[in-house]
């Protein structure tokens, strides 16, 4: 908060009652399809919130409704107690960092950054602009035109141009999508740093799960107009509730099983002849068929007959069909006796040699790392879309 300059800003809410962003039953229908279906969402004040989903899932539409660039078909948007659902975009204390930056090509960097302040009648903005350019490390570029700058620099200008207005909510629409991978990594950390410094509410729309997990305090995974699951990044990753989340956020092995029922804090599942025990809080189905899910890096692998350092069940009879060496780890595909190929990621600790294709192997995992999903869902949901 120390970075926020209090001079002459009207939009900044007084400290006091919470100024959370609340979406209630928000719906956007177009002639041929529904982009957003009765969305309920609370973005806590001062948090870095990510809206994650594949393209066409409705996340950008949601963002544009918050910005005022689209009018909702029904539902409401509140900032604290103030309803802003139908406010004109230029009357909302909300600013956006657009996907392609949308910098004004006829204005130099300093004037781009000062644009919002000038429109609100703040004439004496020299210091604010200078401070903002310093924050995004572009002080020396103030008099250049946007077209003379690199993608990363333009991105930072777009950020500065929005941030200088000290909006209550900053919306970021795929802000890093146009950058190359290396630059994107750098900007992710940069964005997180700035958000921490200014302490504003950030709503970040992205289809890149890694980006969302790196930066966000809370992620909402969106699919086909609804939020599938919302929570802290590690919580979503470790304990996905749907096959879509399991697949879209990282990778998962989903193995078909029969749920035998609950036993205390555990749910028992029969999987390919063996019985697995899943902690009840990780079991999102308690009867019938289910998908037993396990992350590839949680699966341990050893040559057939060799001991595996795990207390869980050992499944034997697999063999390696593919090996990819990716530096920090080795990724194996293991064909199981029932025909399914499972992914296994092993850290390259150096404790054992790499297993060549064709090696007969046993695999195992700790039951508390597994999760259980309802088998009515498509096991491949969320795989192709990224």
């Amino acid at each position: 908060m120390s970075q926020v300059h209090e001079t002459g800003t009207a939009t900044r809410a007084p400290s006091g009652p919470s100024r959370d962003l609340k979406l209630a039953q928000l719906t956007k229908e177009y002639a041929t399809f529904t982009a957003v279906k009765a969305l309920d969402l609370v973005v806590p004040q001062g948090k870095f919130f990510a809206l994650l989903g594949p393209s066409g899932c409705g996340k950008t539409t949601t963002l544009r409704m918050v910005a005022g660039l689209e009018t909702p078909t029904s539902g409401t948007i509140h900032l604290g107690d103030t309803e802003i659902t139908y406010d004109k975009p230029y009357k909302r204390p909300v600013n956006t960092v657009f996907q392609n930056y949308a910098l004004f090509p006829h204005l130099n960097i300093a004037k781009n950054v000062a644009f919002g302040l000038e429109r609100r009648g703040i004439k004496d903005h020299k210091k604010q602009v200078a401070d903002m350019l310093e924050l995004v490390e572009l002080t020396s570029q103030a008099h250049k035109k946007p077209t003379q700058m690199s993608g990363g620099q333009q991105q930072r200008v777009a950020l500065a141009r929005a941030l200088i207005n000290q909006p209550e909510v900053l919306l970021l629409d795929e802000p890093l999508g146009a950058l190359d991978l290396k630059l994107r990594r750098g900007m992710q950390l940069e964005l997180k740093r700035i958000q921490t410094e200014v302490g504003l509410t950030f709503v970040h729309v992205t289809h890149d799960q890694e980006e969302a997990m790196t930066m966000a305090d809370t992620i909402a995974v969106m699919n086909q107009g609804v939020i599938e699951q919302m929570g802290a990044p590690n919580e979503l990753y470790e304990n996905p509730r749907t096959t879509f989340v399991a697949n879209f956020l990282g990778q998962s092995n989903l193995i078909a099983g029969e749920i035998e029922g609950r036993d205390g804090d555990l749910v028992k599942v029969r999987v390919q002849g063996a019985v697995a025990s899943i902690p009840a809080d990780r079991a999102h189905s308690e009867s019938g068929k289910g998908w037993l899910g396990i992350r590839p890096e949680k699966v341990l692998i050893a040559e057939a007959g060799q001991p595996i350092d795990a207390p869980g069940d050992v499944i034997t009879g697999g063999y390696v069909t593919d090996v990819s060496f990716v530096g920090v780890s080795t990724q194996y595909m293991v064909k199981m006796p029932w025909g399914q190929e499972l992914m296994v990621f092993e850290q390259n600790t150096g404790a054992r040699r790499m297993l060549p294709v064709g090696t007969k192997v046993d695999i195992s995992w700790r039951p508390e790392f597994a999760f259980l999903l309802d088998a009515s869902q498509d096991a491949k949901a969320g795989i192709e879309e990224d």
Partner: protein
Amino acid sequence: MTSTAGVAPANPHETATKAPRGRKLTGYWLILPGALWLLVFFVIPFYSLLAASLFDPKGSPLTGYDMTWHFGNFVDAFDQYKGQIGRSILYAGIATLTCLVVGYVLAYAIAFKAGRWKNLMLVLVIAPFFTSFLLRTLSWKLILADDGWVVSAAQTLHLTNLLNLIGLTSTDDRLLATPFAVIAGLTYNFLPFMVLPLYASLEKVDIRLIEASGDLYASPIRGFFKVTFPLSLPGVVAGTLLTFIPAAGDYVNAQLLGSPNTRMVGNSIQNLFTSQGDYAAAGALSVILMVIIVAAVMLYVRTAGTEELV
């Protein structure tokens, strides 16, 4: 490359250097038709005009003209026709401004609001070109005729009084043969030259920039003046030039819709060349008009500063 070839002519590189030279020549061959065209249809006529402007004014088409570096022609022509020059600039200026206002609204509507009617509207903009310039102007003569319904409607609505008041018409309640009719004719005839470049440049304005301006607290009107309009400046500059330059030199509208008191410099040049056969004065007046227009255009383009938008 060339110096290597010079140092070692027997070098195997030579064959390599020859190929690009051949390609270079191709470039010149491609320029040739255009250059010839310019020579025949621009350079020679231009020199001819320049020579005529320096003819001894005592000549005539029958007794012949001699080029005697008679620079006094310029002084005489300017002195005698400064009224028409001023009138041309004034009329063309008003017509250009009117075209800009009307044309901008139209181009904006076509670019942003026309939807699927866009192509149809563009065709309608250029539709007048399907008939001849002269015919279109002549039909305005019919429309604005003293006994026509336009004049009586304008009289009923007291529009003629308003026009009289600002000096665009004479005092006897008519439209034809007044400055108003000439300016209206110029505006009508050159409007498409304004609309098309404006449309082309508005069409290129990224709608997301307009959204961004709204997001940054600019009301639609301020967003227009701060973002859309500056971004359409290349079209504004092109459109005003394409309208002003031909309008300033036009003589058809003044001839058909004006009166002897609304003659423009184009009428004088035409009259000097064809009726009076005074090539010296005609040439000098043409060169003066050209210099004024070129100077005005350079000043204008520099002020508008479009190069920053490229």
